[in-house]
């Protein structure tokens, strides 16, 4: 026992030392609807009733008859097996002073009337009792790799509709009034227990105030990892700090000048930490300890470029755009701590990074294995981790104290609110307050300073007044509220208004509006903010509404916020209530002259690209639309009531002001007089009938994206567009001879050559034309990055990789009589005419003739004809490059540079003119 209380005391001290989040959250219980609407005259009326429910007053103060029907109590957490979920140190600290440990909690303080010593004893007994329920909590390390995913889920799925936003480290970053407090999560939960709570919050919190947002345990683990990354113990898995950046570079950027898009911890030098694969960069930083002084060898491999610094000094430069290539360097290092920084970037395609160390008495191994995120933090964390382990490991509930706690649990009032079943027996609360309607303002728990045994909810003045007026109203024997009043009451209790507006009440708060995001930003607020629910009872089919409320949904593919799961017991009544509140006049029945099959095919025509083009914006049976990905058409009849659909289609703006949905029948008139008798109503009905087949509805015209292969006929085809491997200013040329090239007009280089099919223009010539298109054919050869021609002072100098402005200027092209372009550009003062034609020799391929002119030619000007790991000279002046391609050029020489072979050809000017012929065969 002595052991227990001392370790508890230590943990308690640790808790005290932590800066408590929510210090400026009010101590009053935070009931979101009250916080938000107390000042709003329209909504404030029912708030006293909401408070009576949210504080679960009827668990001690009996309500009868109508009064009972008017309240929807929020049951306190079910405490079955609470010891397996919540850490005993937290239980103790929280019971000691709930309003201080978790400001805004609706949990009252029960022992305000006891002396400090009595209170301490009572709390200790209760802690032992609760901790013995299934304890101790199981723990396993957080999943560091999932922290970033968890952050995204927390920020985007809807958590922020009720809770405060958090930063990359999982700490609250902003206090927004009315946020439901989470308390010090890292002290309360273990990774395992938080993750399983998030998986099924209703098991512990049955009243649905905390809905289930996350869809599986992969997601709940990610969010738990994110929220608990600051916990002691979690630190071990965080070997490195990383920052990730987005942008387009052809060499490693200066990170000091950039703003990271994300940062956090990573167990290794792992490119998965990047926010995206293409046009992305990462900076890792960490500390490693060397056991002895000596020579250490570092290996840095990456695709594209990377650099490695030790103690602030650049050790390895593996920069530039290239496939995975490794560079090795050795340095002398002293014994002890060293800082390592690694930067890596990726333009497009593969993204890789590999950082290794080896020494005399150290096998070659991943450097991350030796790393800690910070010199000091690694030291500092060692101590508490040990203590913590000891605390949990050493925890042994004291049976006698637990028995005392059990009695207290029933007699102090805990069991009135908290359900706790122990061995099939539910603990029954023995506290009985006065009946609800007998409660008097200013007395008992409604007193400004509750005395004696009265629980202290820390109510503020306005809350007490609001409850008093609700009690007064209840005493006047009110009538059962109308369906819409009941709906409003539920919306307040469950905080539906945090996301949805209904009848001009609620909707996303101004202060949280920016948290609602969409992958279709151009849909505007409609794409990111959950829909208003005015008239929703007239809109949605009951079965669908029931499913949405009970199970949640994500019917809007573009919206990140999800409709969470509230549990049928908490929301089922809304299905009828909404239907009753939102009547819609019935639509006259519609009959067709055409047979059913004709109706469907006519409607299919209307939905397709030749008519209304609904599929341009709406997905259809999970197939993407051309533009924004609006809601799936095949789910419409499942979701929408028939009569509502009829009316909505006639004038969408009436139902959703500002929607981007155009009126397909402007002023009720059809554009298609020969379809379904030219009747607007029949056309709408036909579409409803057609879409009612759901996933079996046959796809309308224009849905599938066809390839548009460009096939050269007698003359070459030129294609300037975004070509993968040749940049955003690429000029593709496909020749009738079935060889093709892509010239990069941004970097003045021949970028790609390939054989067979030229290019599929479908990507760029259908829909909006998103992305880079790779060649269509075979044997695609990527030629070296960087300029083809450059001044080189000496053969020891690395091939330059100047920025675009210095590289020269693209000047255009001239097309010869056979339709073949010759590219023209300037490199420094040298004018270049670069003519590429399919070779007529037996090797095939391309023959490139470079005609150069310059008034004052540079003394050492070179063509870099090839770069490879292996360049071998063959017969007749040909060179084989990595066995992939053969290159021939007069005067060629092979040199080694940065671990690669380069084939260079000097350009020799005569009277300001030079000519060089380069041949490719592959």
């Amino acid at each position, binding site marked *: 026992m002595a052991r227990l209380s001392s370790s508890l005391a230590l943990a308690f001290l640790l808790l005290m030392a932590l800066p408590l989040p929510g210090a400026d959250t009010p101590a009053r219980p935070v009931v979101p609807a009250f916080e938000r609407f107390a000042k709003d005259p329209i909504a404030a009326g029912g708030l006293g009733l909401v408070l009576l429910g949210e504080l679960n007053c009827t668990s001690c103060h009996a309500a009868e008859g109508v009064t009972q029907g008017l309240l929807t109590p929020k049951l306190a957490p079910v405490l079955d097996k609470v010891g397996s979920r919540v850490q005993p140190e937290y239980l103790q600290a929280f019971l000691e002073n709930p309003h201080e440990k978790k400001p805004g909690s609706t949990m009252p303080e029960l022992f305000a009337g006891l002396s400090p010593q009595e209170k301490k004893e009572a709390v200790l007994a209760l802690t032992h009792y609760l901790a013995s329920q299934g304890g101790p909590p199981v723990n396993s390390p957080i999943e560091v790799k999932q922290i970033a995913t968890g952050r995204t889920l927390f920020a985007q799925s809807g958590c922020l509709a009720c809770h405060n936003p958090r930063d990359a480290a999982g700490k609250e970053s902003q206090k927004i009034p009315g946020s439901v407090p989470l308390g010090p999560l890292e002290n309360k939960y273990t990774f395992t227990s938080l993750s399983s709570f998030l998986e099924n919050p209703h098991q512990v919190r049955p009243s649905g105030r905390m809905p289930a947002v996350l869809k599986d345990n992969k997601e709940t683990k990610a969010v738990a990892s994110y929220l608990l990354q600051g916990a002691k113990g979690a630190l071990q898995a965080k070997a490195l700090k990383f920052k990730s950046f987005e942008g*387009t570079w052809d060499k490693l950027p200066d990170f000091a000048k950039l703003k990271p898009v994300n940062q956090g911890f990573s167990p290794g030098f792992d490119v998965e930490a990047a926010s995206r694969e293409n046009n992305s960069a990462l900076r890792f930083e960490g500390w490693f300890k060397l056991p002895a002084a000596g020579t250490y060898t570092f290996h840095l491999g990456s695709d594209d470029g990377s650099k490695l610094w030790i103690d602030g000094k650049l050790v390895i430069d593996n920069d530039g755009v290239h496939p995975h290539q490794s560079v090795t360097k050795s340095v002398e290092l002293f014994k002890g701590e060293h800082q390592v920084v690694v930067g890596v970037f990726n333009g497009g395609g593969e993204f890789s990074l590999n950082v290794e160390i080896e020494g005399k008495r150290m096998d070659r191994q991943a450097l991350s294995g030796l790393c800690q995120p910070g010199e000091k933090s690694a030291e500092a964390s060692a101590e508490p981790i040990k203590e913590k382990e000891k605390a949990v490991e050493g925890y042994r509930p004291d049976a006698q104290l637990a028995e005392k706690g059990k009695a207290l649990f029933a007699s102090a009032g805990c069991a009135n609110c908290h359900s706790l079943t122990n061995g099939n027996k539910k603990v029954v609360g023995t506290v009985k307050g006065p009946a609800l309607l007998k409660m008097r303002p200013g007395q008992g728990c409604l007193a400004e300073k509750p005395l004696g045994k009265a629980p202290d909810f820390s109510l503020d003045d306005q809350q007490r007044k609001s409850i008093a007026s609700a009690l007064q109203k209840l005493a006047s024997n009110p009538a059962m509220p109308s369906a819409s009043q009941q709906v409003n009451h539920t919306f307040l209790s469950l905080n539906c208004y945090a996301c949805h507006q209904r009848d001009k009440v609620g909707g996303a708060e101004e202060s949280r509006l920016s948290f609602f995001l969409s992958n279709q930003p151009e849909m505007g607020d409609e794409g990111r903010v959950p829909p208003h629910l005015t008239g929703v009872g007239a809109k949605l089919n009951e079965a669908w509404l029931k499913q949405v409320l009970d199970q949640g949904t994500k019917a809007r593919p573009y919206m990140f916020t999800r409709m969470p799961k509230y549990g049928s017991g908490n929301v089922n009544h809304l299905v009828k209530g909404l239907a009753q509140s939102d009547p819609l006049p019935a639509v006259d029945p519609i009959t067709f002259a055409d047979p059913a099959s004709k109706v469907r095919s006519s409607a299919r025509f209307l939905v397709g690209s030749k008519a209304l083009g609904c599929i341009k914006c709406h997905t259809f049976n999970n197939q993407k639309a051309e533009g924004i990905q609006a809601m799936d058409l095949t789910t419409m009849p499942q979701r929408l009531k028939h009569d509502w659909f009829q009316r909505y289609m006639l004038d969408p703006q009436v139902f959703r002001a500002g929607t981007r949905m155009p009126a397909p029948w402007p002023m009720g008139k059809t554009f298609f007089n020969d379809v379904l008798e030219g009747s607007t109503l029949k056309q709408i009905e036909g579409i409803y009938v057609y879409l009612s087949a759901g996933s079996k509805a046959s796809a309308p015209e224009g849905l599938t994206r066809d390839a548009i292969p460009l096939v050269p006929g007698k003359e070459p085809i030129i294609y300037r*567009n975004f070509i993968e491997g040749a940049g955003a200013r690429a000029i593709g040329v496909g020749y009738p001879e079935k060889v093709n090239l892509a010239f990069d007009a941004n970097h003045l280089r021949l970028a790609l050559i390939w054989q067979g099919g030229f290019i599929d223009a479908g990507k760029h010539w259908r829909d909006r034309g998103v992305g880079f298109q790779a060649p269509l054919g075979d044997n695609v050869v990527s030629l070296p990055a960087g300029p083809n021609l450059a001044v080189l002072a000496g053969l020891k100098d690395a091939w330059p990789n100047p920025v675009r402005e210095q590289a020269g200027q693209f000047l255009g092209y001239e097309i010869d009589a056979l339709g073949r372009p010759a590219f023209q550009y300037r490199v420094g003062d040298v004018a270049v005419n670069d003519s590429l034609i399919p070779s007529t020799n037996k090797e095939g391929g391309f023959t490139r003739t470079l005609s150069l002119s310059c008034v004052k030619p540079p003394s050492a000007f070179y063509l870099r004809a090839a770069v490879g790991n292996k360049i071998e000279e063959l017969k007749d002046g040909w060179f084989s490059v990595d066995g992939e391609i053969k290159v021939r050029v007069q005067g060629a020489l092979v040199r080694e540079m940065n671990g690669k072979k380069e084939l260079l050809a000097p350009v020799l000017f005569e009277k300001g003119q030079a000519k060089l012929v380069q041949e490719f065969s592959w």
Partner: protein
Amino acid sequence: MIRNACMVGLALVAFAGVSRAADPLPKEEDYYKIVKFEFPKDVVLEPGGMALTPDGKLMVSSRRGEIWTVENPFAADLAKDAKWTRYAHGLHEVLGLALKDDWVYATQRGELSRLKDSKGAGKADKIETVNDAWEITGDYHEYAFGSHFDKEGNIWIVLCLTGSFNSNCKYRGWCVRVTPEGKLIPTCSGIRSPGGIGFNSAGDCFYTDNQGPWNGTSSLKHLLPGSFQGHPDGNRWFEEAKESSILGKRPETPKSNSRMMVEAARIPQLMPPAIYFPYKKMGQSASGIDFDSSGGKFGPFQNQLFVADQTNSTVMRVCLEKVNGRYQGACIPFRKGFGSGNVPILFSKSGHLFVGGTNRGWGSHGNKPFALERLDWTGKVPFEVHEMKARSDGFDLTFTQTVDPKTAADLASYKISTYCYIYQAAYGSPEVDFTYPNVVSATVGADKKSVRLVIDKPVAGHIHELVSAGVRSEAGLPLLHPEAYYTLNYLPSNNP
């Protein structure tokens, strides 16, 4: 009363020429007829830019990178007489064409180029880069719309933001000019997602921008050199652009959730839109711009600006005036029913309006995937509000025909509401800050072609939506388009 009704009926018969008892009112097509071009077989031509050669050929560039020459574009029977020749191919989404000497200037995504047919073969064999000093990342939204030549021989180019949201590389979100020498001059910042660029009759350059961040709805904006057009992301290139001598200090970043005229009062470089096109009511995606340079061959609207809308497949009409030294004015519906999503438009001196359309990636009311059409005036003058001008206490309206003095003086003939948009970083804006001024007096001018409206009271910074549904022409016709939307950025201080 009965007599009046008869007169109206008679007038209509006389007026419209076709008398159908069930549908007596004249329609847009009675005044302006859409004539369709037919394309050569298998040709997909999604127009991006247009220009007319001195010898009367129409050149059309396409999103698929081609340029076509159309001979006889004014022919009555286009299917029979229009002759198509492909002038160039393989270019990168050409959204601007201009002609000078023997050269065809084409604004591609990545550069301004000029092309020449040096062998007289009907197709270009020289393709020269005139300027490529702006950057592209490979994002499809990084469009470049180019103008014709201005009086000094410059081409103006508006560069869409990356993804239409951010300025991820140099001069995204800027208007730049390329001089006759091929030099690039960064000219205005603040552009978001343009749909077209063109000049008014005075030679001032305008572009259309679309609803989105910092743009409550689509609008027509004046590209006054040195001005800031409202979207702050591109201002990050001020340092790079500073050699452009017309630029002053980098404008302050506007406050989000404000109002345009509140910010314009604080940020001197901020240019409020000359015309807002209220969302849905006028259109959803404002695009091509040109003015009627025909000197009356297109009807009564000489020198007025016309602006296309891609989503609604319409052409709208705009009358501008300068108040407080800046352009503002009214937009009025003009013609709907084009075949596809209108992008470029081009007036000929002969009074024809060429309209090109594409709805690839962005749907349109016109359901053809692409179209090229010509709008011809039938010679009949529609009854329309000709101009709407702001006064300190209301508006002056002029009409294309003499009005019926009784209905024109009736206060109940007019309804006015005013509103504005939230100027904000979030996407678009609802109409907000509504007021409903009363019409205090409506005085018909001596020429019976104008009405002086005094209202209580005009609101500076608001769009004034005027519906003159009750006004009749002398012949008893209602206005072909009773709605007009005046962007009252500034209230004129004195009445003339």
